[in-house]
């Protein structure tokens, strides 16, 4: 490590053989489950002999997985765009006065349960993925706004002073200094938001969106424990894989602050 620091190369945080890294294993398990759930039918039949249909078959798990990921990705993209803009705005001199208002609004977005948002949204815009998208995007806003504001506020005052004093414009300062330095904290907010929404997206199935929650909802209402387990296993693994991937990305982004 010392030799690498001498050469000016940022050393990797941990040196370990690939097979001790949980990410590829979790990803492989997720892929196997999504693609090969049908092959597990005998297993579920053996575990739950009382059930007529031990495997959820109204839709393939691949289709459920894809629509789940798309729903989470879209809602997170909306949360990120809105949350980032709001977080940047309230940390600028022009927007500082709006800080309490924005704090309150995003806190409300987090406090109101997504089920309630769905209940309000459905009469207005009907069943399907659209109300789910709105509910998830609102729900995911708070950690992103908090992360953006905390990240921007963590940038040392001396760095801002130097950036301005060297002649960076306000935009250049934001783009070249503030956002890159805020990124690790910002990313932690995005990570929380996405992970929470992977779980929350399951309830979107109650308003007709097709997600990995569909087997869970159907299983719960029909006393089919096998369906619940199948859906929950895939959602759980998806959350784990995503979390590990975020952790990896965060470490890469923060490489300039690693000691040694």
């Amino acid at each position, binding site marked *: 490590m010392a030799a690498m*620091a001498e050469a*000016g*190369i*940022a050393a990797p945080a941990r040196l370990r053989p690939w097979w001790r890294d949980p990410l590829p294993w979790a990803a492989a398990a997720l892929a196997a489950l999504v693609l090969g759930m049908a092959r597990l039918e005998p297993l579920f039949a053996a575990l739950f002999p009382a059930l007529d249909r031990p495997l959820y078959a109204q839709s393939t798990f691949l289709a459920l997985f894809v629509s789940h990921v798309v729903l989470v990705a879209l809602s997170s993209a909306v949360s990120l765009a809105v949350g980032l803009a709001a977080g940047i705005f309230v940390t600028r001199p022009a927007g500082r006065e709006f800080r309490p208002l924005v704090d309150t609004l995003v806190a409300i977005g987090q406090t109101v349960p997504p089920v309630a948002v769905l209940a309000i949204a459905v009469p207005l815009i009907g069943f399907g993925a659209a109300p789910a998208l709105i509910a998830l995007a609102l729900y995911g806003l708070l950690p992103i706004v908090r992360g953006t504001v905390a990240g921007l506020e963590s940038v*040392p005052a*001396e*760095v801002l*002073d*130097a*950036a*301005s*004093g*060297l*002649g*960076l*414009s306000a935009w*250049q300062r934001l783009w*070249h*200094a503030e956002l*890159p*330095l805020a990124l690790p904290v910002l990313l932690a907010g995005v990570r929380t938001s996405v992970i929470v929404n992977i779980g929350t997206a399951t309830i979107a199935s109650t308003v007709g969106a097709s997600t990995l929650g569909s087997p869970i909802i159907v299983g719960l209402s029909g006393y089919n424990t096998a369906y619940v387990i199948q859906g929950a296993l895939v959602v759980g693994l998806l959350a784990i894989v995503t979390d590990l991937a975020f952790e990896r990305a965060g470490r890469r982004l923060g490489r*300039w*602050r690693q*000691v040694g």
Partner: protein
Amino acid sequence: MIRLDSIGKSYGGVQAVDGVSLHIARGEFVLLIGASGSGKSTLLKMINRLVEFDRGTLTFDGADIRTLKPEDLRRRLGYAIQSTGLFPHWTVARNIATVPRLLGWPAARTAARVDELLTLLNLDPATYRGRWPHQLSGGQQQRVGVARALAADPEVLLMDEPFGALDPPGRAAMQAEMARIHQSTGKTIVMVTHDIDEALRLATRIVLMDRGRIVQAGTPAQLLEQPASEFVSDFFGRGEIGLKRLGLHGVAGILRGVEETEGPPVSASLTQREALSMMLLRRTDRLAVVGDDGRLLGTVLLRDLVLRGPDGRDG
């Protein structure tokens, strides 16, 4: 080069800077000194418009700075602060290249300039250009900060307590570095400090401030020998002014012919204060002085340190 005319600024009724007029000529090394809250740092930041003044006019190279775009003005004025002002997510080379990149220099010219500056500040380019700021010592970070401020060859260098975070050896090394850079480049430098010895050592002119006003401006010798008020002598430490005066002058000015002395000879680059200290330490009243080449140049006598004027005239 920089002309301040009745500059004033108040924060909520308190005069942070109160009617300051000052002309800084090309090639000067001006040290703004004073206690915290004296307005020295505010005054410096008015020059590059990090702080806007409410009264008076400030011209840079003949132009009213309020007619210049702040970003353009700042790119013509190098700016260095404490070591913590480096961009932690950029390598040393990228940090130094900040202003050249803003100015759109070609990559090859920027890279050459980065290496040139690292060499100027005694950092080996091959070793240091790819490092991250956190991998450097405080002194090395400060060198990079100065290199960054000098990158686009600015007409003036503004420095806000740049060595405040350094330990005494690091600080002394950076002061020597700055004296050398001022001599070799002839740049106009305006530096804020609260360190009296730093001011006496580096300045061609010291501007002493108190409560937003200039108390006295002049050469280090003028402030020590002809203080304008009690405040000035108190600030420089009444009890030590005699010693500080000796510190302004080298032994070379008061050498006598070679005489017989005890103990090893001392370097001709010593200040008279250091020579006096050396005599006290060795319990002697004379020291032999040698040049850089080791040749014997002459002798310093205690009598001369005490009785003669610091430049050799009879006092």
